[in-house]
């Protein structure tokens, strides 16, 4: 049983969303550099991670505006979008030597935009020899088409960004991975195996076989950072679902609240059953106040017909979950017989999608995993 694609917005050109009056930046783990009442300019540094040196994350304002509140995890800014995108004042245009690329990347606060949000400059340090940089364009989550549109509309920027990444890690080959028609092939380990024929062992990363995998919009952000001196303050997301009247692919400032996006896209509150940020398989449920982060690929508003109902009926041992699992695990039974298999699970949700008994398999696995980790810790 295949996970459906539902790529309804494949041909909708990227539009800039009507700009919100205020945004909320998530700064978890970073130290705010502003206080309430501060006036900030677009592109100025708002927060920075505590660790010095290489491991640094920075967050910038997309606005010319005023800081309205600061907490340990969020900064709220109210203001006007600049007429022209002003370049950040706090760092200089850099050349394209490896060090300089990493430096630009660090200064621009680029993080993995596929969801993991690891600072990208760390990934650009070749701890092991890397010969190939792979841009992941699988976008395996149903509904999401933002990466596809970015590649379609800005191929040049992707190509330049890829070259920068190759220079930074000293790789000879760069590849924009071909699309593979399978939900789970977007998983890095399989992607590397399918496109390059290199098997990545369990619990290893693609870098262990000389491959660096980057998200498409991350690569574009790298281009912006180096060639346009622009920090990461916006991204393209897909807005879709049957409770949305004007679905499409939208350029939104990072920190925009879901409520604003829904309002702009014609949200029908009466038929909306579930709001999701990210994809429908691995995303999170959201409400109107949830802000978009650098790793958010979409905002979906699904009707009750589109939304899965979790029922927890008895397992009928049909084996569909096992056939669906990309790792060949035994999802329906794993929580009852805890083993190291639990740790291999990537919570992709394929098992729960196919389960006829509509069991909350992913939740069960995560619970069992936590219990298993605690038990092995205490040993």
């Amino acid at each position, binding site marked *: *049983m295949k996970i*459906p694609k539902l790529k309804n917005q494949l041909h909708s050109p990227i539009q800039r969303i009507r700009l919100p009056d205020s945004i909320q930046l998530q700064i978890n783990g970073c130290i705010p550099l502003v206080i309430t009442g501060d006036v900030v300019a677009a592109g100025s540094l708002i927060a920075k991670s505590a660790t010095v040196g290489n491991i640094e994350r920075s967050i910038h304002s997309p606005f010319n505006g005023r800081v309205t509140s600061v907490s340990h995890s969020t900064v709220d800014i109210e203001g006007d979008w600049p007429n022209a995108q002003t370049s950040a004042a706090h760092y200089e245009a850099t050349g394209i030597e490896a060090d300089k690329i990493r430096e630009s990347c660090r200064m621009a606060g680029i993080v993995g935009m596929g969801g993991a949000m690891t600072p990208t400059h760390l990934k650009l340090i070749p701890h092991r020899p890397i010969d190939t940089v792979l841009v992941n364009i699988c976008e395996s989550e*149903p509904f999401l088409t933002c990466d596809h549109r970015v590649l379609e509309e800005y191929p040049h920027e992707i190509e330049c960004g890829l070259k920068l990444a190759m220079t930074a890690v000293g790789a000879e080959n760069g590849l924009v991975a071909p699309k593979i028609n399978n939900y789970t092939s977007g998983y890095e380990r399989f992607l590397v195996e399918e496109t390059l024929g290199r098997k990545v062992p369990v619990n290893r990363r693609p870098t262990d076989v000389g491959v660096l995998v980057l998200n498409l919009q991350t690569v574009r952000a790298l281009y912006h950072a180096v060639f346009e001196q622009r920090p990461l303050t916006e991204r393209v997301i897909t807005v879709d679902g049957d409770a949305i009247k004007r679905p499409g692919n939208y350029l939104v400032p990072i920190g925009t609240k879901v409520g604003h996006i829904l309002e702009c896209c014609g949200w029908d509150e009466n038929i909306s059953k*579930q709001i*999701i940020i990210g994809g*429908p*398989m*691995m*995303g*999170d*449920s959201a409400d109107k106040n949830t802000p978009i982060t650098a790793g958010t690929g979409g905002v*979906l508003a*699904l009707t009750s017909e*589109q*939304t*899965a*109902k*979790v*029922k927890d*009926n*008895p*397992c*009928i*041992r*049909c*084996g569909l979950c*096992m*056939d669906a699992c990309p790792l*060949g695990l*035994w999802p*329906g*039974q794993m929580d009852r017989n805890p083993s190291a298999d639990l740790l291999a699970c990537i*919570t992709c*949700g*394929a098992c*729960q*999608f*196919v389960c*006829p*008994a*509509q069991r*909350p*398999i*992913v*939740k069960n696995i*995560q619970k069992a995993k936590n219990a298993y980790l605690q038990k092995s810790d205490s040993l």
Partner: protein
Amino acid sequence: MKPGPFIHSGFTTQRLMFITTLAMIPMVAASIWENGFDAMILYVVSILSVFCMEFICQRRVIFEYSALITAVLLVLMLPANAPWWISVVGAILAVGIGKYFFGGFGQNIFNPAVLSRVLLMALFPAIFIMPEWTVDGVSGATLLSKEIGASMPSLSSLLLSSSPGSLAQAMPITVLLGGVILLVYKLIDWRVPLFYLATISLLSILLPGSEKILGHVPYLLGNPLLHIIAGGSLLTSFFLLTDPVSSPFSSNGRVVYAIIAGVFTMIIRYYTPYPDGAAFGVLLANAMVPTIDKYMLKLEASVF
């Protein structure tokens, strides 16, 4: 913690059971057409008794397609001239022992209907008695045990006409039709009927039959077609063996399981006085499922 997927395939237990119920309609219709009012009574009594048993075990009124399926399968495995009360006893055994004794739906090791049928056979052998061991009667026997002269029936007559035996044998082509529906909707794993029927055909040729037991029906030896169509093999391969709850988890495991059921069926048919080993075959294969699952998982893990 990840909340898990927000979308679902739409293929639910309810839907699976509903389509299975629809797939059984042709068989049921054929058996009523062939056997008339008696068959109808058996179905009605069986369905009522199963739901009464469900009510007693769960203490609330429920309607589940799985219970309906058990009730109908139970009757399909009974001889046409069975007395009505056998349905009541069968329902009590299927629901009480087959299902709730093991912890309810999803926990049952054995297919409840098959377990019930085998227990009935042990408790009331007279109802299932074979004609060779009675003086005059041929009723209650399957084609596999009935002497129908020296000539072998043709394929079309095999598929279209009833052979005395259980109600499912009223018109074998309706069983096949039901099986095709299940396969088209991908409700059952095609490997199970394929490997089960293949094992039966192969063994019917390869196994040296015991002349002592099969002497009276010599054409049964080495006649795969008869073994597949007559007797309960078709019903078993599409409807009994494929019950997900009592079959192995992995697709490789299901291949092994189907072969085991086929081997048992043929051994019973060739070397015991029971002419139809299908029900025993299913039960024995069910019993091996935990072992198959364990072994297959290990095997697959080592390949992975």
